[in-house]
């Protein structure tokens, strides 16, 4: 329909893609965008169209680009059980409690699971540390940063 070769169309698409993603990535202003494409020597009408295309789509392009960052495994769910070891081959009459935890993680649509085991006192220590970490959010230092980010 455009009466040009397949290669030309492909290069055209690639060029437009690059222009839009780079502009959106760097979040350049209208004036900077206009100045940049002016160098290419297109007609005024084409320049206006390109600018409009950029302004209309940059928010969406930015949100898609934001999702492309590498992600660490994230929490999905947790299963646990509490057992008591009463005897083993070497020693009878024991009382040894243990907590077994299966941590389900999500990483880029992959589900993995880690199995961990701990005794109750280590578990309490873990909970204490995590609550301390949550408590950090309430310190003045963190509050100041959060306020400045908004």
């Amino acid at each position: 329909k455009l009466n040009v070769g397949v290669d030309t169309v492909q290069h055209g698409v690639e060029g437009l893609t690059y222009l839009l993603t780079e502009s959106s990535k760097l979040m350049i202003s209208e004036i900077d965008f206009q100045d940049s494409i002016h160098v290419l020597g297109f007609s005024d009408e084409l320049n206006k169209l390109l600018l409009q295309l950029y302004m209309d789509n940059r928010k969406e392009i930015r949100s898609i680009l934001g999702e492309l960052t590498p992600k660490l495994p994230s929490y999905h769910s947790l299963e646990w059980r509490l057992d008591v070891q009463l005897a083993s081959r070497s020693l009878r009459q024991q009382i040894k409690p243990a907590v077994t935890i299966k941590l389900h993680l999500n990483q880029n649509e992959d589900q993995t699971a880690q199995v961990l085991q701990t005794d109750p006192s280590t578990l309490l220590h873990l909970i204490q540390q995590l609550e301390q970490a949550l408590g950090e959010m309430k310190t003045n230092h963190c509050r100041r940063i959060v306020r400045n980010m908004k």
Partner: protein
Amino acid sequence: QRFRFCGDLDCPDWVLAEISTLAKISSVKLKLICAQVLRDLLGETMEYEKILKLTSDAKLELGDVKATIAVLGFILSSAAKHNVDSESLSSELQQLGLPKEHAGGLCRSYEEKQSSLQDRLRACSLRLSRLGSVGWRVDYTLSSSELREVNEPLVHLNFHLRDGERDKPVAIPMVLSADKFRVLLAELKQAQAMMNTLL
């Protein structure tokens, strides 16, 4: 305020918020919806279209229907988890603002299925691996490159497990001499005797 069916903790805010949605449905229809949710919790298929039909009279939006299913699922499984009896559950739900007939219908459904629900929850509890079956074979070694007349029995064991960590079937083969096998058997019998004292 602490609730037994929440494990002696506060009731979650979202549950509190949905109690008023439950009250919009008639108590008879609520009991039928409970029956469907119980089917799902017990591992059978829930008939979602029936639930949609039952909630259409109360003019609930799709979001409210899903919330109803979620809150009923929570109440029933949490009550079973903490072994709450039917009357206590009814009184606690009424404290949260659920009308008496609704609480009564819900708790009657709960009571019927309480032990099945607890059995199902017990079966779903975390297990790292499960023994499926044991295959065995006894061979008799006649001779080897080291000794011309060996004449010894040999036991082959193959433990078929379902690995809990990766949820895949695993086979563990091993070979034991007669003496080693006798030791293994004696130790396992001692472990079995210990288990029987606990049952």
